[in-house]
């Protein structure tokens, strides 16, 4: 069996494989020797306190931040040679933290921007996709022609996630989707994450709301000061002494 065919079989089960990456700014290493994987159909979460380096990991996967060491494989292919837009063409989609939307553009335009990789397709393909996405986020339908900066924080987060889904992701990466939102809205966001997952989209979730994230995750990793200190199933991590003591105040 050739190396290529082995890689292809490997890629059938493992969506993303991060191998010993080191990321830093100048001489300072923010992420050190981090390895993890996301398999098909999984929700995997990376949890940790503010400043642990969670967002940096996501940015490095999509290519917005360069690696100093290690490599990232997506569906069996090394991503090192690809620019951010080429990685996204291959199906990795990042929804940045803080519900970042294009405030001066309408909801419709924001969704169209999410379909960048289908820009050469017929308009009807994109409109069909918008319809599908708005079934998950009905609130967007009501305000379709409004400017995004007129929306509440929760609605913006919904829009950011919907925009991410417009790219028909093979892997959806959510960066702190609950950041700065009221508990009721957070409930809604987590419900939506499960709906997206039920449609077969693997999710890599980065969160500070550790309990909520581990509850819905198949597997999780605990990140401290740029290093993974613990890994296991969501339930295992919830029961671990380290997580209870350091993050859940128990």
């Amino acid at each position, binding site marked *: 069996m050739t190396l290529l065919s082995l890689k292809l079989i490997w890629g059938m089960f493992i969506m993303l494989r991060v191998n010993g990456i080191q990321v830093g700014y100048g001489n300072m290493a923010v992420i050190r020797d981090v390895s993890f994987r996301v398999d098909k159909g999984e929700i995997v979460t990376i949890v940790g306190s503010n400043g642990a380096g969670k967002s940096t990991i996501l940015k490095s996967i999509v290519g917005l931040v360069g690696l100093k060491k290690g490599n990232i494989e997506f569906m069996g292919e090394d991503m090192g040679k690809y620019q*951010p*837009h080429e990685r996204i063409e291959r199906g990795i989609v990042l929804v940045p933290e803080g519900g970042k939307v*294009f*405030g001066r553009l309408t909801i419709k335009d924001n969704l169209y*921007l999410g379909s960048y990789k289908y820009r050469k397709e017929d308009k009807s393909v994109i409109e069909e996709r918008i319809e599908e996405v708005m079934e998950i986020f009905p609130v967007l339908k009501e305000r379709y022609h409004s400017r995004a900066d007129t929306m509440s924080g929760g609605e913006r987060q919904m829009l950011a996630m919907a925009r991410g889904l417009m*790219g028909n992701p093979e892997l959806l990466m959510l960066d702190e989707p609950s950041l700065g939102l009221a508990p009721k809205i957070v409930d809604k966001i987590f419900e939506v994450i499960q709906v997206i997952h039920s449609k077969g989209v693997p999710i890599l979730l980065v969160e500070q709301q550790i309990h909520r994230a581990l509850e819905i995750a198949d597997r999780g990793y605990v990140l401290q000061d740029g290093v993974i200190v613990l890994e296991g199933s969501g339930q295992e991590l919830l029961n671990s002494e380290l997580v209870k003591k350091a993050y859940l105040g128990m």
Partner: protein
Amino acid sequence: MEKGKHLYYVVLVVLAIVFPIVFNVPFVQHVAIMVFMYGMLAESWNVIGGYSGLFSFGQAAFFGIGAYTSTLLYMQLGLTPWIGMIAGGLVAIAAGIAIGYPCSKLKGHYFAIATIAFAWIINILFTNWSFVGAATGLSPELAPADSWYAFQFRSSKLPYYYIGLFLMLLTVYVVNKVIKSKTGFYLRALGENEEVAASLGVNIAKYRLISISIASFFTAVAGSFYAQYVLYIDPPSVLAHFLSVEIVLIAMFGGSGTIWGPIWGALILVPLSQYARAIWGGMGSGLDIMVYGFVIMVFSIFRPRGVVSFFIRK
């Protein structure tokens, strides 16, 4: 509604056409020509600074490249400045890509600093390069009479007026078309939030270069036009840092990120600058520049979104 809007533009263009016939005063016509030229420059900058979020403070480099290219082609090869104008635009695109590509990862202030440095390098290079006339500058041979081939008109400013008006309207038309196209859509996304645009797969480097190319081309065309208008160019007149600053000021004053904002900026600031210079410039006290600066300062405090904010309801 759309029909009414078109009629409004037609009326404005007709007014612009009859203006120099009604006000047949050379100085007034000169001011109008400068309005068109600066309107064109500010509109070009608007593509990068207003829509794409790239603050360039080095547009004088492209203006100078346009001016020098058409003048040199005319002086060395006898090529009509009309073709020289296009050639200048193309050379400026090449220069824009040459500076834009290595700077494709620079953001905000760092990009602005890189453009300032680039403009200074071009200025110093041209000041010391004997082939382009060095500090002495270049002055093409004067045609014996008004000539369309040589792009020289000395009996009247009217040809310059109408050419300037046409070039400005052409720039507005092209920028409007680009901004309303799919490309413009991605440029605006880039200007709003580059990182989010990148996370959606928008090819940042490609759209940055498109934006820089459009702005460089029209800035250089304005440079060629200016060179033919004054028929003498040297680094302080076409590569001056203050020119880069003026372009940004006019666009911001009128309202960057809107199609008509930069034109409004030119319509107000250029006559103000020209008349202030004519009235107080000879006193040697710098009063003209003080008045100019004071108006910009006060207006920026009360109308930070520019003149167009009077017309935009939010």
